[in-house]
């Protein structure tokens, strides 16, 4: 029986086949699933903020797109993944409230997506699929057996990318 491993807000985890990873109720945060198709070692990080260098208190590395992805890769490599084989799927980064002002804090979802993509590009990790932006929350599940990312949203059909 495979196990479903939870990843909380500002948290990361890894698993081996046939286990799966999930994070519930992603809003403006971004969920990044990394995958080594050969060993099927998988990882997921739930990042809240784009850039650890902009924040003074940055001990929790899983909180940021830049340090979170690095930390996740290290953990996956320890479990047998190869860096150069990693691919990714990302979801989240919604704008939950239709704010009218252009206050910086309100565009955080968008900035989280940008930062995640930038970091993945720097590391040469391809993004195979994404379901990002818009204005609704998502629960995501990543299956190490198939490399599929399942996305559940309120009032919408389940999506598999």
């Amino acid at each position, binding site marked *: 029986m495979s196990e479903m491993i939870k990843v909380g807000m*500002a948290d990361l985890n890894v698993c081996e086949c046939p286990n799966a990873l999930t994070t519930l109720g992603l809003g403006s945060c971004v969920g990044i699933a990394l995958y080594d198709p050969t060993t099927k070692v998988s990882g997921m990080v739930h990042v809240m903020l784009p850039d650890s260098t902009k924040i003074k208190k940055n001990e929790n590395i899983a909180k940021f797109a830049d340090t979170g992805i690095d930390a996740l890769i290290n953990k996956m490599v320890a479990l047998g993944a190869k860096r150069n084989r990693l691919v990714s799927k990302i979801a989240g980064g919604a704008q939950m409230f239709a704010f009218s002002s252009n206050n910086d804090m309100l565009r955080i979802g968008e900035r989280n997506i940008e930062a995640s993509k930038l970091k993945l590009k720097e590391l040469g990790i391809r993004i195979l699929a994404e379901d990002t932006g818009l204005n609704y929350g998502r629960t995501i599940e990543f299956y190490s057996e198939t490399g599929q990312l399942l996305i559940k949203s309120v009032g919408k059909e389940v999506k598999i990318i």
Partner: protein
Amino acid sequence: MSSINLDQLDNMHFDVLREIGNIGAGNATTALSQLINTKIDMNVPKVELLEFKDISEIVGGAESLVVGILLTLEGDIDGMMMFMLEQSSAHHLVNVLLGKELDNFEDFTEMDLSALNEIGNIIAGAYLSSLSSLTNLRITASIPYMSIDMAGAILSVPAIEFGKIGDKALLIQSQFGEDETEVNGYFILIPSLESYNKILSSIGM
């Protein structure tokens, strides 16, 4: 005035913040109760320092479907005020307010949404005005913004604000409920860290 470190709050601070929540939510609950002409009870507010992963647990789990009405605060205090209702409670509220069948739980119409927004506005206003007169601080709220979605997704918005300053969030949370528990919800006051200093020093802490 010394700056607060969230990890070093003592019982005295928690008591004061709980009392602030009590007064604010008390006024807001009264406003809500008058609005729908029903008696509504309120629990003793909780003041909790939570890790991000636990935040959505306070309203029944990350995936529970809620209506969230958010106002951003400016003035002497900044931060956010959130008013959350379980979806069935939100339906019940608009049904009472708009004189519809009480068991009408179809999708929200434009009219329903607009009514909910106004409810959010009125009761958040009641909460904030009592907070403002208690502390003698000027608080201006934005227009209400609404989202109907998973609790975790909605709470990610204030959680991210706290994420910028630390790894925990301090929430002043009050739960209210009608007699037959048809209207259940939460007021959550989320001042920025500097605002906590201002609130506490305004009342002589």
